[in-house]
């Protein structure tokens, strides 16, 4: 007789087996005709430029965080919207306070300039060029070079 955890173990085995079998079956059946276009990295429909090994702008992270906060906010507001009328003014105020606090958070981001998206001229660093440049120059210049790259990307 299986215990509760035993059942979970069977599930894990099944899941692994399912994936393995599916990939193997696909490999047997599918045609195999690679072209240059197919093998390039998909980049939002644009032609990929440069190496993906670059530093990301920290703003992507901030925007993702703001998005996440408001995303979660909506999830929390749905149940509130369904029931607040049962609680009269009190229930209404509860939701409003929540929204106001979130709004202050948004105002904070705005005021601190995290929504400003200054766009300097893109300087796309190619890994091979960077290595070549760096080996040519003295170490002092490398630091200057790197900080410039950081500022512009």
């Amino acid at each position, binding site marked *: 007789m299986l215990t509760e955890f035993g059942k979970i173990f069977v599930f894990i085995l099944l899941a692994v087996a399912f994936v393995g079998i599916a990939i193997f079956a696909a490999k047997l059946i599918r045609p195999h005709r690679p072209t240059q276009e197919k093998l390039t990295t998909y980049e939002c429909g644009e032609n990929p430029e440069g190496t993906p090994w670059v530093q990301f702008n920290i703003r992507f992270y901030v925007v993702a965080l703001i998005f996440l906060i408001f995303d979660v906010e909506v999830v929390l507001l749905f149940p509130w919207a369904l029931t607040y009328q049962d609680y009269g003014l009190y229930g209404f105020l509860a939701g409003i306070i929540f929204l106001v*606090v979130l709004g*202050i958070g948004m*105002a*904070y981001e705005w*005021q601190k300039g995290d929504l400003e998206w200054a766009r300097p001229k893109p300087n796309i660093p190619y890994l091979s060029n960077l290595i070549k440049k760096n080996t040519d120059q003295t170490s002092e210049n490398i630091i200057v070079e790197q900080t410039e790259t950081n500022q512009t990307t």
Partner: protein
Amino acid sequence: MDLTSLNNSLRLITPEIILSIFLVIVVVVDLILKSNKKVIPYLAVLGFAVTGIVVISSLDSSGFAFITASTSSKQFGMFAHDPLGGFFKLLILSVSIFIVLFTITSSEIKQIHLRSGEFYALMYGMVLGMMVLVSAVDLILIYVALELLSLSSYVLAGFTKLRDRNSEAALKYMIYGVVSSGLMLFGISIVYGLTGTTNLYLINSLLQGPQINILTLLFAVLLIMAGVGFKISAVPFHFWTPDVYEGAPITITAYLSVASKAAGFALLIRVIQIGFVSFVGSDGFWNLIPVFDWKALLVLLSVLTMTLGNLSALWQNNLKRMLAYSSIAHAGYLILALATLSTQGVVAVLIYFIFYALMNLGAFYIVMIIADRTGSEDIDDYDGLGYTSSFLGVSLIILLVSLVGLPPTAGFIGKLYLFIAVLDAEMYVVAVIAVLNTVVSLYYYLRVLKHMYLTKASDSTQSVRASGGEKIILLLLVVPTLLFGIYFQPIVDFTKSCITVLGV
């Protein structure tokens, strides 16, 4: 949950609500004021003071907020409003007020005055976390409060970004903290798996039943102890303490060494007394449920903690680092008082905490004043300082003597009550170890005094003058340290009225 019970719950958490409102006000004021942010620290003090007054006014009332669990006869909430929580809230709030006063005069914080709004907002986050933590009786709420406290303190530890050590401190603090809180969460999940509830009161009644797997519970409790031990920096969870205390801004170091330690002890007292005690005897000793030997664990931790803390402090040349090890040693004494598992033990912990807060804050403040002027925390740079700046010298003598625990200072009274509680519990061997430890600590505290008074001032010694404001703040800490060493009855009476834990 119906509306009236929600209303009652909100009334019980009024201090926390006021604190949250002030947190929002601090953030908004920070947004409105562009460059001149001098008003924010005073606003922060005002917020802590108002919250403190509300806590005092509701000190003798008690009740559960957010009822989530019930047995046939009683209802239990996630949040217990009771005198023990009130005591720790008051302690945390008064320490916070002192820390904000410290930051007003600190040159480290002056250099980042443009970001000071965030600094105080994060401090409010820490205080909110601690205040919920000392009242939480549900493992989930405990974990959430602990995370709120930890996340804010990780950022604060590296907030000034003036030196490399600063970032090192924050990173080390975060890595150790994340691991230990992960372990704690794992322990909580095991307890939930064993008992099917996260409420400490229900866990207590289920542990008294026959069908608990003792070995699994032992494992779970040890994991939870990893989280608590990290907060109170008990050996073997202390590795972060010296590096973080040395690297963080001194104001935050002082804060971590007193306030977040107090919150950790409140949590430990609550978990043991609510979760694992079947009844309190008429002589004040707690009868443990025979599933886990807390006494053995606490005695072991305490002996390790105080011995390692004191022996490592002997070798330190940086005064901040020495005080870090000394705070580990003091955590050891406090765990020892708790290990008596008696009401007297808890009274001793509370008394010791009041005095420990006074003397530790004072010592860190003097280190801060001197480091602001001379840029050094090395004991060698204190040569002859007692003659060039006598006010600071005398204050430091009083505070260090109090940290050793010699009369006529408050530290002596704290140690006196602590040892009485330990001897009452007939723990003679550990009592002797603790006394020997105190003797060891005498050496490294007095070594500072030797440098200040018995060594001639070298050419590099700078004269340090404390400003008027700094002198007043320091006197607020030093005078009570002396006064409570002589007249301590009100403190003892106050703590005795504050040891009631709801529903025990």
